[in-house]
């Protein structure tokens, strides 16, 4: 089985695939669609020609925006030609005249269809100060120009690592400034692995949800608790998971959690005819409410919903097809919500991950009740103070051990002969984590060792 999994066919780029574009340290998630213009690093391009090539292939953008694979060549860097280098910059004067090529010249070179590498070489050849620069400064110069003129990019298969890097680099605001090392801690602290049942509450564009799903590999179940009208899954789509992964993903609106916990969620939907008049309004929320019927008879529920929809459809015969589509969608949603309720009702989740822009304290205090004892939970916040509050509340409530409030520092290094040093210090910006493990609060106090512990102990408490 070892080598069998490595044939090229499964690494081919297909139409419709979600892929990551990479240039240098810059990433962008896109879907491969024919004749679709894609903007990447201030350049328009088409990815049609990428189809059929292998992932990790490097492409160059040719005039017209199409991409064309480049042979992986041992590209001799421009620096190796210019072995000559200065030792310091005492004689380098900024007179603004060191570059002999004018802007128009460079534009002409570009129009001639010169490759990025060739333009860079031209720039170097026409720089009067390049040879006097230190080796380090030369490298830096080339790097900078490469960023500007190199029109190569590689197409990668999306992974959690790359997605996390991309979001942190491009849109940290969308993911509550969750740095990738912090995300890494979350997945480990929550012991995310195949076969478990994990609750996720996030407003990180689906990055955290996708990360959890990747680690579960389609085994077990994930229940996304979402605020507002619907779950945000943009980030999850970009992971390009196979469809069976999505069968394990459930979602539940957090606005119904209180009702679910109080046991009032089910009873309010015993009368489907009352619901019918409501759903005519075609409000998004209504169908979701009625979906929360007892999971034990989903079939019955579906027929009811179907009937009421059929009446709707007849009334507005012009929108027949539309209504039909809507009905199918609703039925699907019914089934999904019923499944989510069934998952939650056991109050036996194996993990809880919270990362949102909401105040984490009420979210945690509510959702932790769905966890089995001896299961980890982790709460992310961009700020430390709300986690201090969570910590205090949990201590008051009891039922948790090993509470830790942490953050991590991430330091990158430049490792080069004689030029090794830390690159930058990213302190503070990565957010904070509160983690712990649930336990039972009631003393077991059994005298008979063979007597099983009551199952629903967690439910009855508090």
């Amino acid at each position, binding site marked *: 089985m070892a080598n069998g999994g490595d044939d090229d066919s499964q690494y081919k780029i297909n139409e419709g695939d979600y892929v990551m574009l990479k240039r240098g340290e810059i990433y962008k998630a896109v879907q491969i669609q024919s004749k679709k213009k894609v903007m990447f690093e201030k350049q328009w391009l088409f990815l049609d020609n990428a189809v059929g090539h292998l992932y990790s*292939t490097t492409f160059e953008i040719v005039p017209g925006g199409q991409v064309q694979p480049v042979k992986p060549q041992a590209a001799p860097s421009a620096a190796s030609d210019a072995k000559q280098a200065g030792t310091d910059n005492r004689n380098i004067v900024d007179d603004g005249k060191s570059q002999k090529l004018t802007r128009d010249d460079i534009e002409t070179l570009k129009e001639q269809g010169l490759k990025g590498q060739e333009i860079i070489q031209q720039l170097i050849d026409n720089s009067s100060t390049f040879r006097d620069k230190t080796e380090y400064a030369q490298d830096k110069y080339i790097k900078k120009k490469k960023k500007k003129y190199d029109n190569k990019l590689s197409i990668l298969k999306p992974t959690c690592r790359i997605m996390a890097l991309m979001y942190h680099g491009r849109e940290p605001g969308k993911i509550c400034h969750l740095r990738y090392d912090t995300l890494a*801690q979350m997945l*480990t*602290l929550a012991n995310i692995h195949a076969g478990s049942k994990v609750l996720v509450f996030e407003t990180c564009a689906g990055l955290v949800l996708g990360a959890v799903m990747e680690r579960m*590999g389609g085994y077990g179940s994930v229940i996304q608790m979402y605020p507002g009208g619907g779950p945000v899954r943009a980030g999850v789509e970009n992971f390009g998971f196979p469809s069976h992964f999505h069968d394990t993903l459930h979602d539940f609106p957090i606005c119904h959690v209180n009702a679910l916990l109080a046991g009032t969620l089910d009873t309010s939907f015993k009368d489907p005819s009352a619901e019918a008049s409501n759903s005519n309004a075609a409000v998004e929320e209504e169908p979701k409410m009625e979906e929360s019927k007892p999971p034990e008879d989903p079939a019955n529920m579906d027929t009811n919903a179907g009937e009421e929809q059929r009446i709707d459809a007849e009334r507005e015969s012009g929108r027949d097809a539309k209504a039909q589509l809507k009905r199918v969608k609703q039925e699907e949603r019914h089934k999904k919500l019923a499944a989510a309720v069934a998952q939650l009702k056991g109050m036996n989740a194996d993990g809880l991950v919270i990362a949102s822009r909401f105040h984490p304290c009420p979210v945690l205090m509510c959702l932790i009740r769905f966890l089995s004892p001896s299961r980890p939970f982790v709460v992310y916040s961009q700020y430390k103070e709300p986690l201090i509050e969570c910590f205090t509340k949990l201590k008051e409530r009891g039922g948790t051990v090993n509470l830790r409030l942490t953050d991590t520092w991430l330091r990158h*290094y430049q490792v080069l002969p004689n030029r090794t040093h830390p690159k930058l210090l990213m302190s503070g910006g990565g957010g904070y984590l509160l983690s712990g493990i649930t336990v039972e609060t009631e003393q077991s106090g059994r005298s008979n*060792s063979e007597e099983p512990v009551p199952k629903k102990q967690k439910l009855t408490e508090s």
Partner: protein
Amino acid sequence: MSFAEYSEEIRDGDVAIVYLGHESMMPVKVRHGGQTQTRYGAIRHSADLIGQRYGAKVTCSKGGWVHVLHPTPELWTVTLPHRTQILYSTDIATITLMLELKPGSVVCESGTGSGSLSHAILRSIAPTGHLHTVEFHQQRAQKAEEEFAEHRVDHLVTVTCADVCKDGFGVAGVADAIFLDIPSPWEAVPHAKIALKAHGGRVCSFSPCMEQVQRTCQALLAHNFEEVETLEVVLRVHEVRTVSMPLPDFGPDAPATPQAPPLPASNHATVSLKTTTPPREMPAHTGYLTFATKPRT
């Protein structure tokens, strides 16, 4: 119980983690008729553990109580018997993400050491992945193998007693990821390349010293690895506590409001607030993590 799968109840033969108090834990092999001494008294396995739910509060013979936790790689890391210096969860978390480990990944590791990282890898790649771990110290290799069986993850791992720098990982073209925690990782770089899939894969090397990192980076670049980067992750633990800060006594108020009654309480006024304090000392360095990608060949 398994380190890769949760179960509800404690059973005979399980490894359970007894939580004694703040950061104080011990692993217990649960055996019918067995007994474990803690500072709160004895725990009798048959009476107090077997059949109990994981997470239960268990009363010890002296009347004190402990919680019994389901084992996880993270709890194992802080309770395992050290045979070597080990990797801790902060580095492990970073390694797992950056090596892109997930169910089904095939991973090569050397050395096995005390198995701290191995357990975390096995958790992440189960149920369809595999770990090939190489340890040149025979006793350590044997002990690790025993532990994997005890922890019911042995079907996911192959332990080889060999010198990875000389003999490699014993596999070729199968791995998605390689992890090296050995004194001279640069000598294992060619073997890492062989072990990785033709399609490519990720490599990580853990080294405490920058000189090792430099040689490893050179070796990686010489073998056409790409995206070579070195980083370091430092964990900060914040202790939550209430502090009170006294207010100084500024003396009686100015005579601007002479008719107002004096406030006697101001003498001993304090303001208390919830805050966090850093630990007096913290681990500042474990090792440098060097990552690289093997391109498709």
